[in-house]
Structure formats: C-alpha cells, structure tokens
C-alpha cells in the first residue's frame, strides 16, 4: 500500500532521521484514537519531534450524496457524521434549510428542539468524559457516565424511536410531538444529573494523578486556537469567550439564562473543566426550558415538496464538538446543488500537530481525547 513508505512528512519526500529518531505509527486500528485515525509520530527518544495525521478512512462521500437526494431525503444522512451527537447535526441541517426556504419553525418546535439538543450535548460530553478518563487510566468514570447516558438515550428512544442516529427533527419543525411524560422524565433526569456531575468531579478534578496527567499537557494558546480555527470547548479552554448560542442565537436559546465557561491556560485540564461546566449549564437550560413548553403547532408553513429559491446560505450551530456549519447552495430544484458541512472535529484535529509537539508519547492519547473528535465527522 502506498503510504507505508517512511516519508510523507509535510513537504519532505525522504525523511532524514536523526540518530535517535524513530517513526512510530499509531495505526488506524487503535483503542485510544476513538475511530479510524492514523497518527504518524517522529520520536526522539520519548519526545515527539513531528507528527502527521492521516485521515480519510471513514470518508463516505456524504457531500456528494447530498447532491443526489432531495432536502428531506438527505436529513437522515447528517446524523451519521457526528454519530455521537446526531440530534445536533440534524438541528443544524434543518435550520440551514429553513433559512434557505425563508421558513421558520414554530415556537413549540424550537423549544423542544432546544431541550433535545441540550440533552444530546450532555450525552456527548458524558461519552467524552468516560472515554477520556479511561484513556488516562481511570477505569470507573466510564461506567458512571454510561449509566447517565442510558437515561438520556431512553428519552430519545421514547421520543423518536432511535437512540443513536435519531433523525429527530424535520425541516420546518418536528414530526413527533412530545410523548406523555416527556417533561416529567426529563425533569427527573435533570434534577438528578446535578449530583452526578459532582460525583464525576469528585473522582477526577482534585485528583493529584489526574492533574499531573492533564495540567500543562496539550497547551493551545488563544491566538493559536483562533488561527487554527478551533471551536467549541477547545477554543473556550484557551480563554476565548465565544459560543454561537450567545453570539448568534438560534432555536430558542435567547430565551434562557446560561453561562459560557472558559479556561485560562488552554491545557487539557482546562478543557476538561470547561466541558464539565458545560454539562451543568446544559442541564440548567433544560430545566428552564422544561418548565414551560409553549403550546401550538409543531410544524411550520413548509410545503410537501421543498424547492428553495436560488441562492446560498451558511448556518452554523454550537454542536458539542464545536461550530458545526452547513453551507447549502440551491439551484431552485428539489435537490441541493451543493451541501458543504463544516465539521468541528476536522478543524480541531488540525491543531493536533501543534499541540503534541514536544510532549511525551504517553500524552498523545490524552491530547487526542481532549480534542473530542469523532471520525465520522472528520471524514464525512
């Protein structure tokens, strides 16, 4: 296979290795890279001198498929990109097409969308926490996180029938109204969840070993983060206070009260704290939203056949991983002319090379974990 030659480092055909340097391959199959990611490391003893990410193992041509499906038919495909947070993907797409159509979802739909998206954010962060902790060696948080996530997935299953690739929203609103007991169950989960986050924090936040493994590891300064296009908790961990839910509110976020946590040093520990706090804030949003879901229709005035007028739109949302953007170009027919998905994991992953330079090999797993990537989204 072509890329087994020892070269391929940026711009260099034949790598000239120093006396003590070796090239180490963290192959596509690896327990800690969270998907099929290949990282080629050039090591000097234990320190990383250079690295290269090779992606594309999960490329499925989603953008090409979009040009051959109608707008409604394409909606289930977007769930499969960031399969850990399918609801967010769906929200971004539906809102982008609604912008293209000039339609708007009714208020009830917006509020339910907000609740489900925030639950999905909690669930995505829980999975991140479990896998990140187990990569660093803490065996127990994974099971606690999965236990909570199970509750959220049960709510999703009752709502739309699926746990993972939910296709929960439709263009123009919702297909299913909330089921009997949705508010009660969600409220019960949210009230319970506050204590659970404290439980996870108790295990990790002040733990000397956790701090030693994550403080000062994978530092990304604010200027670098902005230059590399990082978004989401990666950007906020570096100290930039920016969240699309506050900057350019969508769905029903402008109705609710919540904080944007930021970090100070841009290291793994700060990103961990940012995500923990985000879970709490999401919980807070859910509790506020659950209190009064407005009555009304769940579907807006959108025709059966969607033919948006000619033009283009870019719409982005704050997905759990970062800024998820949809750039859709319409040529007036029922099928989109071009759908471009701006994947947060892809762009956050670009910063990996910068973040692992100079670190030890044992830190690579921690840094990949802290970026919270999903290969489905990186490769599409």
């Amino acid at each position, binding site marked *: 296979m072509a890329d087994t030659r020892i070269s391929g480092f940026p711009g260099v055909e034949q790598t000239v290795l120093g006396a003590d340097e070796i090239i180490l391959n963290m192959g596509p199959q690896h327990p800690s890279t969270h998907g099929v990611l290949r990282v080629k490391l050039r090591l000097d003893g234990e320190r990383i001198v250079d690295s290269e990410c090779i992606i594309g193992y999960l490329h499925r041509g989603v953008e090409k498929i979009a040009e051959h499906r109608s707008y409604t038919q394409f909606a289930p495909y977007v769930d499969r990109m960031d399969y850990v947070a399918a609801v967010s993907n769906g929200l971004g797409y539906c809102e982008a097409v609604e912008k293209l159509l000039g339609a708007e979802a009714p208020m009830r739909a917006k509020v339910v969308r907000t609740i489900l998206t925030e639950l999905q954010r909690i669930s995505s962060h829980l999975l991140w926490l479990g896998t990140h902790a187990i990569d660093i*060696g803490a065996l*127990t948080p994974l*099971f*606690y996180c999965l236990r909570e996530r199970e509750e959220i997935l049960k709510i999703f299953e009752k709502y739309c029938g699926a746990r993972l690739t939910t296709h929960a929203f439709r263009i123009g609103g919702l297909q299913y109204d909330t089921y009997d007991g949705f508010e009660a169950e969600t409220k019960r989960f949210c009230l319970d969840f506050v204590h659970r986050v404290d439980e996870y924090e108790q295990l990790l936040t002040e733990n000397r*070993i956790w701090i*030693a493994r994550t403080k*000062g590891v994978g*530092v990304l*300064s604010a200027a670098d983060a902005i230059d590399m296009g990082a978004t989401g908790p990666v950007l906020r961990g570096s100290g930039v206070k920016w969240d699309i839910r506050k900057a350019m509110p969508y769905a029903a976020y402008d109705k609710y009260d919540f904080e944007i946590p930021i970090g100070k040093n841009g290291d793994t520990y700060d990103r961990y704290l940012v995500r923990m706090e985000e879970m709490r804030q999401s919980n807070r949003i859910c509790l506020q939203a659950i209190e009064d879901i407005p009555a009304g229709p769940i579907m807006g005035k959108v025709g059966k056949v969607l033919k948006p007028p000619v033009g283009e739109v870019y719409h982005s949302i704050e997905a759990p991983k970062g800024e998820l953007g949809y750039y859709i170009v319409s040529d007036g027919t029922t099928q989109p002319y071009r759908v471009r998905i701006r994947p947060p994991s892809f762009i956050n992953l670009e910063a990996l090379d910068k973040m692992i330079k100079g670190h030890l090999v*044992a830190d690579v797993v921690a840094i990949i974990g802290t970026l919270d990537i999903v290969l489905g989204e990186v490769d599409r």
Partner: protein
Amino acid sequence: MSALLEFLKTYMWPLIFALVIVGVLPLLAGYVVLMERKVMADMQARLGPMRVGPHGLLQPIADALKLLIKEDIIPENADKLVFWFAPVISVTAAMLAYSALAIGPFFQIAELNIGLLFIVAVSSMGIFGIILGGWASNSHYSLLGALRSTAQMISYETAAGLALVGGVLLAGTLSTQKIVLAQHGGTWFVFVAPIGFFLYLVASIAETNRAPFDLPEAESELVAGYMTEYSGFRWAVYFLAEYANMIVVASIATTLFLGGWLRPFGSIAALDFIDFFPPLSFLGVAGYCLYRTPKQPEPIQSIVMALFGGLCFLLATAMALPFVPAFAASKPGLHGAFWFLLKVSLYIYSFMWIRFTFPRFRFDQLMKLGWYFMIPLSIVNVLGLGLYKVLRQLQWSRWPAFLLTTGGTLLVAIWLVWLAQRKVAVPAPVGEMTEAEG
C-alpha cells in the same frame, strides 16, 4: 529407602505445608482474580461475572480450562527455551517467597531467622521473569515494555525494602515468627510506624505493576507490554505470578505491620468475644448461600451454591473447634489463619480500591515519585524509627516519642511534596507560545 522415610518423617509438616501452598496458591490467585472482577463491577455500578457458577464462583475454573486448551503460539524468532522459562521464573519466585511466611504460629514451611530478608530477596527474583520474557519475545516493543517494567520495579524495591527495615527495627529481628510475636501484647506496628506502612503500601502497588503504576502493562498505547507475545497458558502463568505476588506482598505487610495472625485486641481479655467472629462469619456466609440456593436460575448453579454453603459450614465448624475444651490448643493455629487471611484480603481489597479510583501515572512521573519522594522519605522513616527506639530505651513514654518521630517524618514528607509541587515539569512545546488573549 529408610533414608527416604527418615527424610519424610523429619520434614513431614514442612512438606505438607509446601504441598498445600503450591496446590492452593494458584487456586487462591484465581479466586483473587474473581474477587477483583466482582469488586471492580461493584464500584462501577454493575454486576460482574454472574453466569458461570452462582455469582461467578466457577469463573476462575472456566478461565483456567479455557486457557489450558488454547493454541500455543510462539513468535518465529523467539528464543524458545527462554520464552518457556521466563514465566516459570516469575511464578516460582512468588511461590518460593511463601516458604518463609507464617500464616499461623505453626503453619510455616521454614522458620528462618533471616526470614524477611529471604522473602524480599526471593520475590525480587521475579523481575528476571519479566525482563527475560520481554527479551525472549523478539519484539522491539516487548523489550522496551519489559525494561520499563523492570526499571519501575527496581526503583520501588528500594523504597519497599527501606519501609520494611522500619518494621524490622521495631521488632528487632528478621524472623517472621518473632516479628509477629513482637506485636503480641503490644501494638501492631502499623500504629507505631504508620508512615512505614503507607510507604510499603504504595511501593508494593508499584512492585506488582498495579494501577496507578501500570503504564508499562495496561495502557500500552504504543509500546506493548512484556506479556504481549504470550498467549494461552503461558500468559496465564504470568498472570498467576502477578496475583501471587500480590498475595505475597500482602502477606509481608500483614506480618510486619498488621500483626500477622494475631487477633485484634488480642491481649485484652474483656474483648474476647471477638473470638466468636470467625465461626460466626462463616456460619453467616453458609446460611446466606443455603438461603440463596433455591433462588438460582439454573439447577447447576443451585448445586454449586449448596456445595459452597456446605464448604463454608465446614469451615465454620473448623473455626468453632477451639471452643471444644479438648481442642483448645488449636485456637492460635485455626483462628490465626483466619485473621491472617482476613488481613491479607483487606490489604488486597485496598489495592483494588485504589486501582479503580485513580488514573495512571505517566512513566516519568512514576519514576520521579519513586526516586524523589519515596526513597528519601523511607530513609528518613528509618532514621525516625531508630530515634523512636532510642527514645524508648531512654525511658521516654510512648506518645511523646511517637509524636516526635512520626511527626518529624511527616513534616519531611510534606516538605518533599512541596518541593515536587514547586517545579511542575511542563514539557516545553517546540516553537513559540503566543500570549493568550481574551
């Protein structure tokens, strides 16, 4: 022929004990694995093995059978003799260390007057097993993993040994029997030398390659551990060696710090009712097993549960035997074994508790901890305990001497921690770090 009979007669009891240990230790190690899985499951809000035998009680047997019938794979260019021999060394060292350990006043293979020295020396031979295993695998990464493991174990051996020296100072002897007897009537050494106990606890976790010190073994993101090329029963032997090692260090700690086979509050006659604890506890377990027997999902599980209940009942009877006046002399032996094994179990439980709570150390952090904190502290600990003995000889009473020496050592420990905190090693990123902007 008669020479053989003579030999057997003289060494009858040691031979019997040796057979018991060689036969039971692997089984015991297997059940420690089961205990670990159940404890892990409990801490992770799940159940653990439940199907193979009631509550997983036959799991170790099933695992052993499976491993025995697995295909024996040897890497192509591996050194076959050393490949075969390495796990054997590991497990032999662990079992051999048991020859000088005393599970009861009578239950001991060899009463050596250099007992503790012998145990520590022999158990450290297990390190050979690791390095040879890594080398014989003929794999770059296995060798690196083995070297790391070895470096870690050697570093923490020093700290462990020095911690044990503390206990030896207090006992005045290296013989395991006499060390326990020195704690009889007085206090267990854990209360006199708590820092020594703590040091030994941490060092023994590192010795046995358990989390949070298991980077060479478990994480293995890139460098595979020394056990990678081993599969099937060879791997099982390594695994067995690891758990046998755990039992050995637990036994050493129990002997030296936790009073060996002595009953808690053994010298206070008013608390003699504690003597009822061994038979009653077994009776309770037996009763619970028999109660749960009809509730098992499968008939085979009911049978095993009933058998297990019966076994516990027999043990309860054995523990109750000393209460029969004719057999009163067997109390130290029988109850002693019970208390010893209970303490060993509690020590191993704390190993497991620590494993499932903490993340792993990175290798450089691990070595730093060993050399910059553990070894200096253990040296200071030895000095402190020596001072304690001198003060006691000078007729100081206990508490002031204890507070002075242990307090002093504690202050040194705090100072060492503060030193380590002061310069946190942040790997300097190659390239410039731009200032963070809001």
